[in-house]
C-alpha cells in the first residue's frame, strides 16, 4: 500500500480528534480526542519512519505514548478533582472566568 495513504489516515484521525475537541463537552471525551490526535501523530511518525527507512519515527512513537500516559495521569487528576467539586465534567460548566 502506498505509504502516503497512511499519512492521509493520520491526517484524518488528527482532524477527527481536533473536531472532537471542538464539539464535545465532556472533559474526559475532549481529553480522549486529544489522545486521538497524539495517536494520529504516532501513525504519521511510524509511516514516515518506514518511508525513510530509519528508526527515529518509531522511537518517537514510543516517547509519545509515554508522554500521553503522563498526560493521562495529570489530566485525569485535574479533571477528577474538577468533577468532584462541581459534580460535572462538562468543560462548558467551567466558565467562571471570562471576559
Amino acid at each position, binding site marked *: 500500500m502506498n505509504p502516503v495513504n497512511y499519512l492521509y489516515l493520520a491526517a484524518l484521525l488528527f482532524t477527527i480528534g481536533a473536531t472532537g475537541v471542538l464539539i464535545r463537552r465532556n472533559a474526559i471525551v*475532549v481529553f480522549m480526542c486529544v489522545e486521538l490526535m497524539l495517536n494520529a501523530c504516532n501513525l504519521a511518525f511510524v509511516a514516515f519512519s518506514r518511508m*525513510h527507512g530509519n528508526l527515529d519515527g518509531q522511537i518517537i512513537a514510543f516517547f509519545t505514548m509515554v508522554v500521553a500516559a503522563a498526560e493521562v495521569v495529570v*489530566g485525569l487528576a*485535574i*479533571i477528577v478533582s474538577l468533577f468532584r467539586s462541581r459534580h460535572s465534567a462538562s*468543560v462548558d460548566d467551567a466558565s*467562571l472566568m471570562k471576559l
Partner: protein
Amino acid sequence: MSTAAVLSAPAVHSLWTTAAEPVDKIPAPTIEYAQLAPILIVVGAAVLGILLEAFVPRRARYHAQLFLAVVGLAAAFAATVGLAASGHASTQARIAAMGAIAVDGPALFLQGTILLTALVAVFTFAERRLDPAHHGHRVDSFAAEAAAVPGSEHEKSAVKAGFTTTEVFPLALFAVAGMLVFPAANDLLTLFIALEVFSLPLYLLCAVARRKRLMSQEAAVKYFLLGAFSSAFLLFGIALLYGYAGSVSYARIADVVDGAVTDVDPALASTMGNDVLLLIGFALLLTGLLFKVGAVPFHMWTPDVYQGAPTPVTGFTAAATKVAAFGAMLRLLYVVLPGLTWDWRPVMWGVAIVTMLGGAVVAITQTDIKRLLAYSSIAHAGFILAGVIAATPEGVSSVLFYLAAYSFVTIGAFAVVTLVRDAGGEATHLSQWAGLGRRSPLVAAVFAVFLLAFAGIPLTSGFSGKFAVFKAAAEGGAGALVVVGVIASAIAAFFYIRVIVLMFFSEPKPEGPTVAVPSPLTMTAIGVGVAVTLVLGLAPQYFLDLAGSAGTFVR
C-alpha cells in the same frame, strides 16, 4: 535523557544497518555531564524532592523542600554561570548529549534567566505570612490538600491538621528542568519532551490554589486541555517535519531545508521535494510555540489561567514559560529554519501585529488586575515577536535582554498582587485597588514602578528592552512593525496609567483591602524585581553586552 543519544542521526543509522549482526557490546552514549550540569542538578533536586515528600515527616517538609529547591536552583545557576564563564557561551559552545542539547550562548543566558526567575518565584511560593494562621498553622498560597473537594469535611480536617501542599516545590523544579531543556533542545523530540516536562507540572500547580479553588481548578482544566491540544499540533508538526527531512535533528533538518545534504536517498529525495510537508509542519510547530508564549490567536488561555492560578504560580508561569518558549522559538527559527526566513517572516509579522494590538486593546477594559497583567503579557509577547522577526543576531540578543527584563518585572508585579488582600484572599478586582497609594504609598509606588516598566517608560528596564527590540526590528527591516508596536505601546500605556490613577488619585474606600506585611521571602522577590527594573533601566550596558555576546546559536 540518555535515550536522546540513541536518536542522533548517525547513531541510529548504524544501529539500523547493524541490527542483524551479533552484538558484542552496546556503544555507550557520550554524555557531557559537566555541560549539562544545570539541567541535571535541577532534575536531581526535583527527584530528591519527591523522595523528601515520601520520607520526611510532614512538619519538616516545608523547610526541607524550600531548602532543597533554593539550593538546587542556586547550584544550577552557579553551574550556568560557571559554564558561561568557561567560554561555553561563546567559543566553547557545542552540542552536547549526542546532538540532543545545545550548550551555547542563548541557551545559557536563557537558562540563567529561568533559574533566577525560578529562584525568586520559589520565594513567593514559600511565603506564609500573608494570610492569618489557620489553627495555629502558617499557610501559604496552596491548598491544604488539593485532592479534597472544596468546602468538604475532608478539606476542613486537612486544614485543621495543618497539611500543606509541599509538592509544589518538586513540581516547580520539574517544570524548571523542562524549561531549561526547552530552549536548549537541539532536536525536535527533545523539544517535545521538554515541553511536556515543564507543562505537566504547571497544569498541576495551577490547580492547587488555597483560595478560590473552583477557579483554580477551572484554570487548570482549561490550561491542561488547551495545552494538550496545542502540544498535539506541535507533535503533528514534528511528524511532518520528520517526514520531510527524515530526521528530527535541528542540524539535519536545516541542511535538508537548505538543500545542503549529500547523502540523499530516494525516499528523502521524494519528501524533500514536497514543500507542503515542510510548510505545514513548520506552521503546526509554530502553533505549539505561539500557544506557549501566548500570542494572538493562541492566547485565550492566558487570562483565565493567570487569573485562576495561585498568584505565585501565575508569576512563575508568566515569566519563566515565556522565557523558555521564546528561547525555543528563536532556536527553531534561527537554527532550523533560516532557510525559510522568507516564509515565516510575513506570517510572524501578522501574528506580531495582532498580538501587540489585540493584547493592548483588550486590556483596556479589564477589571481584574491579574487578567489585566495577562493581557499585558500578551501585548509583550507581541513586542518580543517583533525582535524575533528581526532575524539578525541583534534581534536574538535584544529578545534575550527583553526576556530577562520582562521576567523580573512580571514576577515582582505578581508578588505585589499577592500582598493586597481582603477577607476573601487576594483582592484582585481593580476597584479594590482604589486609593492604595494613600494607604500604603510604598507598595503602590513599587507597583507603579513595575507598571511603568511594563509601559516602557524610560529609566526602567521595560524601556531598555523595548528599545532594544524595536531597534533590532527596525534594523532588520521591520520599521512598520515598530510603528505598530509604538501604537500598541500607546494603547497599553492607557491601562497601566489607569491603574496608577486608581492607586494614587482615587480616594481609598473604607472597606477596602489591606496590604499584608510579607516575610523577607516576598520582600526579596519584590526587591529583586525593583532592583533589576531600575538597573536595567539606568545602566543596561553590562546586560546588553551579556545578551549581545550570547546572541549566537551553535549549529
